[in-house]
């Protein structure tokens, strides 16, 4: 997949904290906030913004992982069903342990979630790199597999978290530290670590090189197989972290958990300024992209002049406009 004629020169991220290359999505974000305020002043209320940003945390965290995968020249369509699968496994494990371990089942469950995520990511990575299958197809396949597994585990129904754990686990989504909701803190931490890895370590360079030009990377002694596989593993870890934050919000895993997240995730990454064909990744742009998507949905709920049937159309139009702003700002 390549893009249009005159690929604008994208500048290089200098520092891992912030870079000018990421400014585009932030401009789009600012524009959206202004529009939102004009539509409904409540839009900028602290509660509303905090709700929306908290919510966008899942997609943001997963999309940070996707930035690695896409930057390295891959793609992962399985993230949504992987999230459902990990949530399912985690809840089953926590529920099984709750009687004997009490609230300790929660941290143990988190470890299980992480392990599962790493394993799923590894599976994706190996199929793509060792199996040499176009990532789109490979992860479409595993998407079906993860989705079926969660359906099977839940017997087509839901896997709710044990009531005894529920209250203890709640703060992971609903709690705040210093007034800031925990999911927001988690996603900031994930993004900070990710941008450190992507911009400040050798691995990050390899990732961008593998995505920018496979041959050159290979000739420079970079193992494409290893680099891209690791990107998928990072993606798995991010999905696991998102799933961990997600459990208390919805309290259950169902066969429909995370349906179509993959599209949102990829959209967030691209709106954030990372090219789908690979190369330099833009972590903070991705985070902004995730927030933009969630804000658009929020705006649809808060505004009253769009017919319920046309919400999707307006969202589509806004996304396209956001991309135009982003491109224009370059």
């Amino acid at each position, binding site marked *: 997949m390549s893009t249009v004629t005159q*690929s604008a*020169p*994208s*500048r*290089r991220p*200098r520092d891992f904290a912030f870079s000018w290359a990421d400014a585009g999505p932030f401009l789009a974000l600012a524009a959206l906030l202004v529009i939102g305020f004009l539509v409904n002043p409540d839009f900028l209320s602290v509660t509303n913004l905090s709700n929306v940003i908290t919510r966008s945390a899942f997609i943001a965290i997963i999309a940070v992982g996707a930035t690695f995968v896409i930057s390295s020249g891959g793609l992962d369509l399985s993230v949504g069903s992987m999230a459902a699968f990990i949530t399912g496994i985690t809840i089953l494990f926590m529920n099984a342990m709750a009687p004997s371990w009490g609230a300790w089942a929660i941290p143990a469950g988190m470890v299980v979630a992480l392990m599962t995520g790493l394993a799923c990511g590894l599976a994706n990575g190996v199929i793509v790199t060792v199996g040499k299958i176009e990532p789109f197809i490979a992860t479409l396949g595993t998407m079906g597999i993860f989705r079926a597994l969660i359906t099977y585990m839940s017997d087509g129904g839901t896997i709710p978290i044990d009531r005894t754990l529920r209250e203890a686990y709640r703060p992971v989504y609903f709690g705040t530290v210093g007034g800031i909701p925990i999911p927001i803190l988690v996603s900031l931490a994930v993004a900070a670590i990710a941008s450190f890895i992507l911009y*400040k*370590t*050798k691995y*990050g*360079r*390899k990732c*961008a*090189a593998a*995505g*920018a*030009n496979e*041959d*050159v*990377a*290979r*000739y*420079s*002694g*970079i193992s494409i197989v290893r680099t891209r596989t690791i990107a998928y593993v990072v993606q798995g870890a991010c999905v696991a972290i998102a799933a961990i934050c997600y459990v208390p919000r919805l309290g259950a895993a169902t066969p429909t958990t995370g349906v179509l997240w993959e599209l949102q995730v990829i959209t967030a990454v691209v709106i954030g300024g990372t090219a789908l064909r690979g*190369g*330099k990744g833009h972590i903070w742009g991705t985070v902004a992209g995730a927030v933009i998507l969630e804000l658009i949905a929020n705006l649809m709920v808060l505004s009253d002049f769009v017919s319920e049937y046309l919400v999707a159309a307006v969202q589509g139009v806004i996304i396209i406009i956001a991309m135009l702003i982003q491109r224009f700002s370059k």
Partner: protein
Amino acid sequence: MADNLDRERMVPRDANATSKAASGACLLRTRGLSKQYGPVTVLSNVSIEIEAGEIHAIIGENGAGKSTLMRLISGYVDPSAGSLEIEGHAVSFATPHEAQDAGIVLVHQEILLADGLTVAENLFLGRELTRNGVVDDRRMQQIAADKLAELGCHVSPNRLVRDVALADRQLVQIARALLDDYKLVIFDEPTAVLTGNEVERLLDIVLRLKERNIGVLYISHRLDEVQRLADKVTVLRDGKMVGTYPGRTLSQMDMAELMVGRELSALYPPKSDAKPGEPMLRVMNATVPGYVEDVSFTAHKGEILGLAGMVGAGRTELFEGLVGLRPASARIELNGVPLHIRSQREAIDAGIGYLTEDRKAKGLLLQERLAPNLTLSALGRFHPGLYLRKRRETAALAEAVAQYDIRLKSLKVTAGQLSGGNQQKLLLAKILLTDPSVVIIDEPTRGIDIANKAQIYTFIRKLVGQGKACIVISSEMQELIGLCDRILIMRQGRINGEVSGEQMTETNIALFATADTEGGQAAVGGRA
């Protein structure tokens, strides 16, 4: 074959063997290296020896197998037969990286950089410097800037490779090979895209490598360089070794004849005595934002007009702007008729053909076979009615292969499998297929061997003989002087001077290319 080379100064291979008998194991020895692609043999039974501190040149016609040999030595390609020895120990490399670990590095003929990454990132790709596990960008940028400056390249290490000129990319590639201490550095036509100053600097660096007792394998079609540098010269012809000769004993003519296996006539065709015809292409007030400012010139019917200048003078940008490949403004007249060109297509349709200097990224579809590449700009000619006539395409390819002497082992290869020089010839054929009345050729003989150069020059002369105008952009002053009727010299986005006839000397051109107009003109004594 070597048997008809009976002149005494052409010492046969054995002489070489005796000369090194005392020195023990040499740095690198190849034994019977061969390479086949399917049924096609591109290299057979090549055995050469390189000593530490020796500059060993490999010469041969386009497609002779030089690059293939280098790729075999440096781990990019597996040999079909034969073996390698380093300092007496048998080695084999699965990857280029293994070869690098063993001390062998190759500077590719073709640019191999990730153009979405910066200069510094490319330079250090796969061997980033770190401090406490954190990549040390500042230090890498510093070293990059220093290394590049040594080569006379002053691009910022922070720029994306996609935004820097071809010559600078080549210098980045060269710098990559100089970053670490290798035992053997292989240069595959390193100067093909460089201009005078940079070439000098590079030759200097090669000599300094030799001083540091590093072995150098050096491929070039610029035989003057070979003559200046080489301690030994190995000649390849059609995949086979002709022989290895002590460098300084061979004249350029000797080398050329060894390469082609026959006697060569003059390199440049005689210039026509006829006076240049009518003005054909008139360009007035051409501006390419950021690169070229207010340039006007005229190319006449039957004239070969040269464009000289240093890297970054803006020659490429000027013509890319004129043919609609980048934003530009200009008034253009062709045979007195004003033209408004907004795209390459319109330029082609108007009869202006432009051949890019960057054959690999902009000229050819490397994964595609030869016929579709050849006809891509002139599809209309093969599409008389409803559909493309493949037979006509095949015929056109056969004709082009014959006319431009494109060397290939099979008509089924893809463009990317052609040797560098033959790619260039295919590209030339592609542009001329559109039958332009004004032909603009950016670096016409980049990477082309001496025999084929002569052919191409003759060809260009023939074109203008047919009433076309030809504009040749070249970084080789010799070439411009030998070929052109008149030369414009650009400097910093403007035309800084013009020379013709007797005044076409390297000194004059260099003056105009470097000094500002007054100084230059004073020296030459006014415009011709």
